[in-house]
């Protein structure tokens, strides 16, 4: 379990301190611990992104980044004897994450706020603020790895495939990968907990945080509270038959099966489409979700090889890849065809997966190890 020497970006551990983002969870606590074990000066930063008191009647401990979590982070920092500060990111978070989250649902699409948070808050603004503190390197508790080669920096899945978070990191640029450390990506979650216990950290046995940290109750209620809901609409079958009424398209995701409350069908029913202009939610069976392929836009190119191919405009760029289309998805083999720098077509090879417009599609190499590129799934 001693893998410190294999961690990349150790070249960054020179003389200036590293900012470590500390949410108050076990992963970022251990990230800080692993770096202190190497004897490196650290600056612990908790990112104040959302005013839970103002925005929620309950001050839930189920979320991360709440005042109680910062208290835990402060205790860990004190234990590790590193300076610790709560830094205010609320304005950026509200603009780049919350507003986009709500608007995406209102448009009948499925957002992924963790990706926006990583790209706009953690890997953009945190880095800028860290530079102001005199720190050019940032460490986080993400389960992902970075490798350096002659061609540049490679982003790899974390060692623990169950916890891998590389999917959320596809917007990372080369300069960002080059000044980032993911200490926990070299370990499995049980190992991380063991390390936390070894270090006597208060967060060692802390429960996992929820998927969406700023929502304490239901996502749909949150969308209505912050942005106002969309009006009622109709459930419509693929043949155009009206099946019933629903409470607004912001409540549905393509591929969703639960919570439709449409009885009487022999086969399980799915949301197979959402029409934002008519407020219709299209209902079908699993086969109706099947597509030959789909389009991804707002592309980010991550692997050095693809970055070079795109910069040299060698379109169409084609690769056999493994496509992961939501956060808990193992990935399915597919063919990628990029015709320009912003757009990519994905064609399933043998198996297929239902895709939700608005979600991220992230493409890995055929070993399902190195992250190549990613983007947002376009409306079908």
């Amino acid at each position, binding site marked *: 379990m001693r893998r410190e020497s294999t961690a990349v970006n150790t070249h960054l551990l020179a003389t200036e*301190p590293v900012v470590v983002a500390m949410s108050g969870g076990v992963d970022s606590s251990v990230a800080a611990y692993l770096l202190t074990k190497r004897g490196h000066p650290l*600056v612990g930063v908790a990112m*104040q992104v959302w*005013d839970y008191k103002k925005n929620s009647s309950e001050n839930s401990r189920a979320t991360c980044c709440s*005042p109680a979590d*910062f208290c835990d982070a402060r205790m860990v920092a004190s234990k590790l004897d590193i*300076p610790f*500060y*709560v*830094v*205010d990111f609320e304005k950026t978070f509200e603009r780049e994450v919350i507003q986009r989250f709500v608007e995406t649902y209102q448009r009948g699409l499925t957002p992924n706020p963790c990706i926006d948070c990583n790209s706009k808050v953690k890997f953009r603004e945190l880095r*800028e*603020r860290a*530079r*102001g*503190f*005199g720190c050019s390197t940032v460490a986080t508790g993400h389960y992902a790895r970075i490798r350096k080669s002659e061609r540049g920096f490679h982003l790899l899945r974390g060692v623990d495939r169950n916890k891998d978070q590389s999917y959320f990191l596809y917007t990372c640029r080369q300069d960002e990968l080059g000044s980032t450390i993911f200490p926990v990506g070299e370990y499995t979650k049980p190992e991380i907990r063991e390390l936390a216990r070894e270090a006597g950290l208060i967060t060692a046995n802390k429960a996992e945080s929820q998927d969406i940290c700023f929502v304490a109750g239901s996502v749909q209620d949150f969308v209505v509270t912050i942005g106002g809901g969309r009006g009622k609409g109709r459930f419509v079958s693929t043949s155009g038959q009206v099946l019933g009424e629903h409470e607004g398209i912001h409540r549905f995701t393509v591929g969703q099966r639960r919570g439709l409350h449409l009885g009487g069908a022999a086969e399980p029913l799915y949301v197979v489409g959402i029409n934002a202009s008519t407020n219709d939610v299209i209902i079908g069976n699993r086969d109706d979700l099947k597509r030959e392929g789909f389009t991804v836009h707002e592309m980010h190119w991550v692997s050095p090889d693809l970055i070079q191919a795109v910069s040299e405009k060698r379109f169409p760029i084609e690769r056999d890849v493994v496509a992961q289309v939501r956060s808990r998805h193992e990935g399915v083999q597919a063919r990628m065809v990029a015709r320009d720098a912003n757009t990519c077509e994905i064609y399933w090879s043998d198996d297929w997966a239902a895709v939700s417009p608005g979600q991220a599609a992230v493409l890995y190499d055929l070993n399902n190890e190195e992250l190549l590129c990613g983007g947002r799934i376009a409306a079908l």
Partner: protein
Amino acid sequence: MFLDLDANATYACDEQIQVLIAQAMAQLGNPSSVHRGGQRARAAVEEAREGIRELVGALPGDQIVFTSGATEANNTVVDAATRMGSGSLVSTQIEHPSILAPLAREALRGRDVRLVAPQQSGEILPEALVSVLGSETALISVMMANNETGVCNPIIDIAQRAREHAPRALIHSDLSQVVGKQAISFSEMGIDIGTISGHKIGALAGVGALVLRHGVSIEPLVVGGSQELKLRGGTENVLGIISLGIASRLVRERITRRSAQMRAVRDRFELLVLKELSNCDINGMNQQRLPNTSNIFIQGVRGDDLVVALDLERILVSSGAACSSGKPEPSHVLLAMGQDEQRVRSTVRVSFRADQSEQDAERVAHTLVRIAKRMRDEERTVSHAA
């Protein structure tokens, strides 16, 4: 070595006081006990009381009442005035929260509460205060010097004019920040009651005092014991009180020199920053200010981040008042002075101690300028990228 430039948040005990406090710890008793252990504690408490009386220039007939700190003292004042009549409670928008919060609570209960706005310079004008007074006014509370800007208010003038217009009012001034930084004379101020904080003058936190002019009587906030002439129930915080007495005597002996030293160091600091850094401004610069306080607006720099960056270089400042919540709100003082939120959030407070030198001022000025320039360069990069 740490350079503590946050004296307005707390003025940490210097070594001399630490030693004296440690000696006092050896012989503590309950001042209410009849036996000699109690008598020793009683004598120590009374000695401390005299030390404070001399420090603030109170007369022999004036009363010194020990409290758990300035917050309790200020709460006591608002509570007492509220019981004294049904008239309005008048104060200013720039007071410490320990005045503003009890007043807000009284306003919620239906009391007429009036808060006077400061000038853009941070000063409270007597005319502005007088304009909201009525003959029924029950309380007038105006701090002598603001904790964030250091700007001083003309208390003598305010008290005199207030007395004419509101003869029944309890006239109070929060003296927490001014005591220990410049010489004051309670007896010449013309106020009824003043607030003092222990840890702002180098004593322990957890002790403070009210100074009551001879003949002024108030009802206690904390009841349940006959201590402090029944004005504050509860066994005295003997160690805290002793520390306040020690600090009072030491400060009083050197007040003129302390004041001059702080002013020279602070002025040197401000001169250097203004010379080396563009687009910055000292709030209340042309006003009468506390000699140790500098409240600086630095355009294009987040105050909170500057505090962190300076801390990493072992220089301790704050981005406003000391914040107990962990999530700083923009300064209500600077907002009341008419500044916009962006400017307020680009402000830091530097407050010197009396044992600091001009070399210290130079070190902090150069460091602050270097960091501010670093932060501004990045802001330019970001705006280009966007």
